[in-house]
């Protein structure tokens, strides 16, 4: 009797359906876009029976997963470089690459009146840890590095940098208070699950190249076409703007 129960359990576990509804697509999404994508997917769900499953990570990591054959149908990067590279490799649907959002970098601390609106807290240096995203893998980390280099502080502050795997983890470092301040995406501040307190410096765009975030379709099918035309709709653009991005005027396909 006992033995039979074990067998039943074993068989049940093995035949449990894994992945698989035909109309489900997986969307690799850069971490900074997490809140916006959650809202977009939510909105899309109300109008479509298709299921869209976002997977979040750093642009660099997701990129290498796509190269290595990860089963993603669309890739929302936090830069233009990786989508271009995928296009050159012939891994994308021709003509699918477009800029879906332009993001801003912000220096943020949960402490009130800690970060001033000139960013001079960086020079005073009364902090132990400054969090940035990994510059090689995360475009917002690269932007943070550009800013520090423009200010001539990269060398001096290097010993005090803590690096998150992506801008999501970087945000967590600062949010939890383990790092006093950090460079994160503006969208994370304005659209988080709970209202974010503290002080911030919206970095002027002459100190870094604006983060043009591009998306590419990797698999052409009805669901990806429907979802991507939704992303290009004015309604989606409104949601994206609500999450702290600017959207460029683009023509519907």
């Amino acid at each position, binding site marked *: 009797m006992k033995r039979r129960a074990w067998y039943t359990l074993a068989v049940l576990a093995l035949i*449990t359906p894994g992945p698989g509804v035909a109309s489900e697509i997986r969307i690799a999404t850069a971490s900074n876009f997490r809140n916006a994508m959650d809202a977009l997917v939510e909105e899309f769900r109300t109008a479509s029976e298709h299921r869209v499953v976002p*997977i979040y990570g750093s642009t660099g990591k997701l990129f290498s997963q796509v190269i*290595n*054959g*990860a089963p993603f149908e669309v890739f929302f990067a936090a830069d233009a470089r990786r989508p271009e590279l995928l296009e050159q490799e012939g891994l994308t649907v021709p003509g699918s690459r477009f800029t879906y959002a332009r993001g801003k970098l912000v220096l943020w601390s949960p402490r009130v009146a800690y970060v001033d609106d000139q960013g001079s807290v960086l020079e005073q240096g009364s902090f132990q840890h400054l969090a940035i995203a990994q510059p090689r893998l995360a475009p917002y980390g690269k932007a943070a590095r550009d800013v520090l280099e423009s200010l001539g502080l990269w060398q001096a502050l290097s010993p005090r940098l803590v690096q998150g795997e992506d801008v999501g983890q970087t945000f967590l470092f600062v949010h939890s208070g383990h790092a006093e301040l950090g460079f994160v995406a503006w969208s994370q501040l304005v659209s988080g699950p709970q209202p974010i307190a503290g002080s911030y410096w919206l970095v002027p765009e002459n100190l870094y190249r604006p983060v043009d975030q591009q998306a590419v379709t990797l698999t052409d099918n009805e669901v990806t076409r429907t979802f991507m035309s939704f992303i290009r709709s004015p309604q989606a653009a409104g949601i994206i703007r609500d999450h702290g991005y600017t959207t460029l005027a683009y023509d519907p396909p």
Partner: protein
Amino acid sequence: MLDESDITALVITLKLALTSTLILLVLGTPLAWWLARTRWRFKFIPEAIVALPLVLPPTVLGFYLLIALGPNSPAYGALGFLGGGSLAFTFSGLVIGSVIYSMPFVVQPLQDAFSAIGRRPLEVAATLRASPLDRFFTIAVPMARPGFITAAVLGFAHTIGEFGVVLMIGGNIPGETRVASIAIYDHVEGLEFTHAHWLSGVLLLLSFILLLVVYGLNGRFRVIRL
């Protein structure tokens, strides 16, 4: 509360642990039997290899697996008959990783249990004209029962605790490779602490119960040696 994706992650985790444990029991039993019985002077070499995952960073294993399972490796071609396609980012890939990763937790308790039987009961059985296979299944296996229980529970529990290898070869695919430990990591990064708490609580409880089973059933049985 646990939402649908958390339940899926838990199901994937249990499925992975169960599959890996069953495979490990099948592969590990003859290996442990041989290690326990052989008088080969170099047997410390396979013993050391089996114990490697205990000390190796999971990233090392994950890195080698990523290369070995990828489209550019010889193993890839050899595995082609199993359905083709890269094994990275698939459940099958995770099973291969887990089998290697949890190997010592299954082989070592079995080897200890087989060694503890000693040669005498088997020699007695042999004088009664029991065949080697007969001796193994009617003497060794029943006598090593605590070892089998320990091996199965530890292999299962250790696979549930797997993180680094899955992080490197899994790709965090919901319904396929997003196991509970990865889902927790994802929740924390998304500041979804309530979800992280629930899933962590479930894993903590599950792991504790599994270890209670091992220690409770086996009393003084050695659980791990290095």
